């Protein structure tokens, strides 16, 4: 198990019990309430998307892509390729500099990077990757609204 106490001052830590457990309990209650609300309102009375009833909202981009790409082989290849790209994303965007610095930090856990490094590798700090992700999300949302 990962030891969070290494290289950290006591004021940078908090007890797992009850703090984190309570946090999880509260959000779990929120989830149950959300689910109970969903039970009463699903399926939504208004039709935002132009789709058949048997297609759920999260499979809508796939359904629209299927109607746009008539050739079955091309469609399946596109879906498999997208799934592989999605699964292999961390290896495709592997940053050698970051990898080396994180390996160094593994050796020297008292370094400043270990204390203050979080947040430096957010996606919005990398314009190319950020643009790719945003364009993909916009493309998927646009697919949902296309009338085929």
């Amino acid at each position: 198990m990962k030891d969070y106490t290494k290289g950290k001052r006591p004021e940078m830590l908090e007890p797992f019990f009850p703090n984190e457990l309570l946090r999880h309990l509260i959000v779990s209650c929120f989830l149950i309430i959300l689910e109970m609300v969903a039970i009463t309102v699903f399926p939504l009375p208004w039709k935002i998307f132009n789709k058949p009833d048997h297609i759920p909202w999260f499979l809508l981009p796939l359904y629209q892509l299927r109607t746009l790409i008539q050739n079955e082989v091309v469609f399946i290849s596109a879906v498999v390729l997208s799934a592989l790209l999605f699964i292999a994303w961390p290896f495709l965007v592997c940053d050698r500099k970051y990898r080396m610095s994180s390996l160094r930090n593994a050796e020297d856990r008292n370094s400043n990077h270990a204390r203050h490094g979080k947040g430096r590798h957010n996606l919005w700090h990398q314009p190319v990757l950020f643009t790719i992700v945003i364009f993909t999300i916009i493309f998927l949302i646009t697919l949902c609204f296309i009338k085929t």
Partner: protein
Amino acid sequence: MTNEIGNQGMVRELIETNITRRLIPRGLSWFGCMGGLSLVAFMIQLGTGIFLMFYFIPSATEAVVSIQKVSHSIPYGWLVHRIHAVGPHVMIGMVLSHMLRILFKGIYRHPRELHWVSGACLLILTFVMYYTGYLLSGGSRSSHSVMPVTFIYALHIAGIPLAMGLFMGMHFFMVRKTGIYEPL
């Protein structure tokens, strides 16, 4: 007697190391609970699914009738069936939020690449699970399915959950090993 005391000591130590004396970084985000919520949603699906297994008949002619029987004749059957039908929407919402957070915060980077891989596989399996569930709940009557109901049923209650269990085990093992979200 000595054995019992020894076991009690071991359990106490296990609880103290993992729960009561465990320290974590201060100020973790509430959004960090999305992964845990996905697990809770999965457990709800598992519980309601086990309940439905006792009444569901995996046959092309009787599947829909058995679901109607659960909804109309079994006490609170309608509620359990409804939770099982709506739950995947909530679960997929939670998994997608969790995934987007990981993606935008760059937490999938070294040494957590395999967390992403196992999580992405879990998301895809959840989609397949939903689709097989949909086919079982009446979709198999229509022209959407060419597979026999028993095959879809076996996939839905055994094949996919087993694969999900394996990926979940891998996911949680690695989260435990590398910790949450800080650079190593």
